[in-house]
Structure formats: C-alpha cells, structure tokens
C-alpha cells in the first residue's frame, strides 16, 4: 500500500494508533464528570435515534408512492405532552447532576494545598507556598487536594487541564479558584482556553503529576530559598504595614493575627469571610470594605505591589493564623500519603460540604 500514497498510509497508521475519544482520566473528579458526560451522550443517542427513526420510518411508510393521499391530523395533546415532559425531565436531571459537579469543582475542600497561578499575556506563572516558581508548568502530587488561586495581570485567561476535567478563568483584578485531586502520575496538557490575544495558542504548558515522594523531591530541588510567606513578611516590613498592623493595643490598624478565614463585620453592617480574595482586596482597595471600629485610613497599595507581592503578603497574613502554620507544614512537607476524609467518597457526585476554611470564589 505504501507506494500508492505514503501520506495516506502514514495518516491511517497514525489514526489507528492515536485514536481516542476521551482524554485520560487523571483526577478524582474526572470519572464523575465522565459519568455525566456518558449519560448525556446516551440520552442524545437515544433522542437522535428516535428522531432519525421517525423521519426515516415515516419517509418509507408514507412516501407518496406508498401512500398517495395524506390523512389530515390536527395534533394530539397526549403525544405532545409526552414529548414535552420527557425531554424536560431528562434535561432537569442533567441540570441537577451538572450543578452538583459544578459546585464540587468550584468548592475547594478545607485541607487543600493552595497554589497561586498568575496568568499574563502569554504565560502562566505558578507559585507554590514554599516559594517554588514555575513558568508554563505545574507540578502537583497525587492524593492531595490542590486548590489553585488564579489571577490575571491583564486580560481574561483560562487555566484548563483536560485530563483533570477542570478549568477556571483567570480574571484581572480578582481571585478565582478551582481545585482538583490528581490520581495518575504523568504529564498532561495545560491550555489557556480563553482567547487572550496574539499568542493565545502558545500559552500552553505541562502539568506534571508526581507521587508524593517525587513531589517532595521536586520541591526540595526547585526551592528558591524563600517561601511565599517569608517573602511576604519581608514585604510587610518594607512597606511598613507593621506601622499600623502591629497587634499593639494602640495600633491604628486591626491585628492581622487569626484574621484569615475569620468572620469580619464591616462598617456598612455586612459580614464577610476574610478569604484570600478578601485579603487581596483589603490591601489594594481598603476603603471598599472598612472593618467595623476602624477609620478608613489604610492607604491603597495599588500600583505599589506587584501581583506576586500581593500573593506573598496574603500568604504571610495567612500564616499569622496560629493553626494555619501547622496545617501548612502538614500539607506541604508532611504530604500525607492518605487523603483526608473530605476528599474521599469518589463516586458520590455531591458538592463538598461548605468548606469552613476554603474559598468559595464569588
């Protein structure tokens, strides 16, 4: 056959060897997502077959040759009700099922390890809590829920890992988050899926899933010496945040110890959880939500700290929580080989219980 058309031949070989209908399932959520997907494919096939059968069947049965004179029929309420209610029911099932998965993907569990991802034209920068930086790449361990906190420095980008079935838009000016738990070590595609300008199609990278041991090794190898929190501490001093936030009774600003994930009452009477997104906003737009009992005197740091700087500061403020430091140590260096109870029960497509500590990104 070769001599007929080498190109065609090559092509066929390639097709036979590479043919796939689904990307690998490399995260805990992937099988759940696929279950819904298969269900939908099935319903669609049934629906399509039904429509096809009706068209073809009637075309044969009632073609003019066989059935020269049409019988006029007005309609049938019963039939019409049937084909209103059955699709509606099926669509509603899809809605409920889909929403359960959606909330699961966008509600990180409490014990997730947080990795920051900054998108900009046209690269991804990942920052691990230990201070490891990566460009267009992300190393993650298996068996550990990972929360990505995403932000963009310019336009919308979208962080997509098809093998994990997760994707989240990185938007300018606001943190968003998504989480996953990798199951299969290996290398997977990372795409920017939101159109973001000229080199959108080059804003791609590799997700490397490692076993916890390998991941520990990798962390050690690629450490930059200073963790995010340490960097943040340095910034905290150099930007003289501690002029006001020093925990002394006469301090002009509130103490930041234990502020992360605490419930704050604002001057306008609302309550809010001080999650990462809130902390970021408190640094850049302090007067938008003034804590009750304080004057709106905190200056804005917009334009003075880089996005990385803000991340470091946020990470530092998080470590001021007494129990957070312990947890973080557990998460990054301890790397429990067994996952926590929240992330078990792989088959129930239920949203994780509202995480006490996690971020629900608005």
């Amino acid at each position: 056959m070769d001599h007929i058309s080498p190109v065609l031949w090559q092509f066929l070989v390639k097709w036979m060897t590479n043919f796939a209908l689904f990307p690998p399932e490399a995260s805990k959520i992937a099988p759940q997502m696929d279950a819904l997907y298969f269900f939908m494919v099935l319903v669609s096939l049934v629906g399509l077959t039904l429509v096809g059968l009706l068209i073809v069947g009637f075309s044969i049965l009632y073609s003019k040759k066989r059935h020269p004179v049409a019988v006029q029929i007005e309609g049938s309420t019963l039939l019409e009700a049937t084909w209103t209610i059955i699709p509606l029911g099926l669509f509603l099932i899809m809605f409920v099922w889909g929403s359960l998965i959606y909330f699961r993907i966008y509600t990180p569990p409490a014990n997730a390890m947080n990795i920051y991802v900054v998108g900009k034209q046209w690269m991804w920068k990942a920052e691990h809590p230990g201070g490891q930086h990566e460009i267009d790449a992300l190393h993650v361990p298996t068996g550990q829920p990972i929360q990505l906190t995403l932000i963009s420095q310019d336009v919308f980008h979208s962080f997509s890992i098809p093998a994990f079935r997760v994707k989240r838009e990185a938007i300018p000016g606001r943190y968003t988050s998504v989480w996953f738990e990798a199951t299969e070590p290996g290398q997977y595609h990372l795409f920017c899926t939101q159109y973001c300008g000229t080199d959108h199609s080059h804003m791609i990278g590799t997700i490397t899933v490692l076993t916890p041991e390998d991941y520990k090794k990798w962390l050690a190898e690629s450490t930059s010496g200073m963790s995010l929190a340490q960097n943040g501490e340095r910034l905290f001093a150099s930007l003289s945040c501690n002029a006001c936030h020093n925990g002394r009774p006469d301090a002009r600003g509130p103490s930041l110890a234990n502020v992360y994930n605490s419930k704050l009452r604002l001057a306008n009477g609302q309550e809010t959880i001080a999650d990462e997104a809130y902390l970021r906003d408190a640094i850049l737009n302090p007067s938008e939500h003034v804590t009750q009992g304080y004057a709106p005197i905190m200056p804005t740091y917009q334009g003075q700290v880089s996005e990385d700087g803000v991340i470091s500061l946020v990470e530092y403020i998080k470590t001021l929580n007494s129990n957070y430091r312990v947890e973080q140590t557990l998460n990054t260096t301890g790397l429990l080989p067994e996952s926590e109870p929240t992330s078990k029960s792989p088959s129930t497509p239920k949203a994780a219980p509202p995480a006490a500590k996690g971020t629900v990104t608005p």
Partner: protein
Amino acid sequence: MSDSSTLVQADHAHEHPPYQRHHFETMQQQVDATGFAMWLFLLTEIMFFGGMFTAYLIYRNWYYPAFVAASHQLNIFWGSLNTLILISSSFTMAMGVWSAQMRKQGTLVLCLVLTFILGLGFLGIKTIEYKEKFEKHHVPGAHYSLNSFLNPDSDKEAKDAGDKPLPLDMARHTEIYFSLYFAMTGMHALHMIIGICLLGYMIFRARQGAYTTGHVSFVEYFGLYWHFVDIVWIFLFPLLYLISRHQ
C-alpha cells in the same frame, strides 16, 4: 365557489387622502401601523439606555462613597432648572400635539417654537455644566484629576457640601461615576440634539400648514419621542444629581 376563493374582491372604491401610502388599505391602518412602529422604536431606546442604567446600579452599590462625593460636584441649581425646562418642553410639546389635532396652525407653531427654545436652553445649560467639568478635569481619561475628592477643602463644591476627603482608592472610583455621567447625559443630549433638528424641520413644515389638515401623525410621533427623552431625564436627574445631598 366564491366563498372559498382566496381572492374575493375587496371593497376598494373610496378615495385616498394624499398622505396615504399606496400599500395601506385605509388611512386608519396607516396610522395604526406607523404609531405602533414608533412605540416599538421607543422600546429599542429603552433597552439602549437600559444597559447604562444597569452599569450605574452596579457601580453605585459598589462605590457608594465615591458616587456621593462625585455627585456633589454637580450643580443642583442647573440640574433642577434643566428638569424644569425639560418638563415644560414636554408640556409645550403635548400642547403642540393638541393644537395639531385641533387644527390650530398658529398655536401649533407657537408650541413647537417654544419646545425648540426650551430644548436649546436645556442644551445650553448642559454645555455650561460640561464646561465646568472640563475645567475641573472631571472628564474621564488621561487628564482626570482626583483633587476635588482628595482635598475637598480646595474645591468649592466639595467644601460647600461638607465632603470629607476620600481615601485614594475610593477617590479613584469617582472616575467611573463621571464616565457614567457623561455617557448617560451625553446619550441623552444626543437624543435632544436629534430632536431639536427634527423640531426645526417641523416648525418649517407646520408654518406651511402641513400638520393641521387632519394628518397629525408626524407631530404625534415626534411628541412620543420627545416625551421619552424627557422620561430618561426624569430618571437621570435624581440618579446623578441627588444621590445623597444630606451628607
């Protein structure tokens, strides 16, 4: 078989007035149709402004202090006067429609001229207001100045209103207020300008007696447009000028 034929002769004997377009069966049909069309056009106008009202609502909730401080920069006197002018012009316009219906050519011309003058007056005042914004660098863009909001004492309007200095980050959001202010009042003014041009044309035609022979549609539809523009202002005025004057 005539009862089941499609093409039964319709009674078609009556005379057409000169302004009846050929494809309408009756004058009534023409009036109904064009009037309805005018209303549909106003629907598109509602939605057109709707986008900006949505934006306004969101940012006003987000940046309330900035919106309050920025609105203090607007001059209540001019704003109220303009509201007065516009309402009066709506009234004269309504009277214009009435005179056309009553076939009173003189009154019609008078009403249209009054409307015309009031419309121009509105735009004149708007120009004064815009000029002031321009001089104080409150026009969004590269030259936007935060001075009035960071140091209210240096600014007459802010001082009069008793404003306290805004923190820098909140002060910056006044630019959004002014963006919406200019976008909304600008679009409104644009509609006024179009309306005034049409008014000019109508005065010209009215003096020739065009609308006082029973065919009032044009005056009436223009009236609808003019009242719509008035309604937009009825909302813009409290939303932009009167956010919170007691502070």
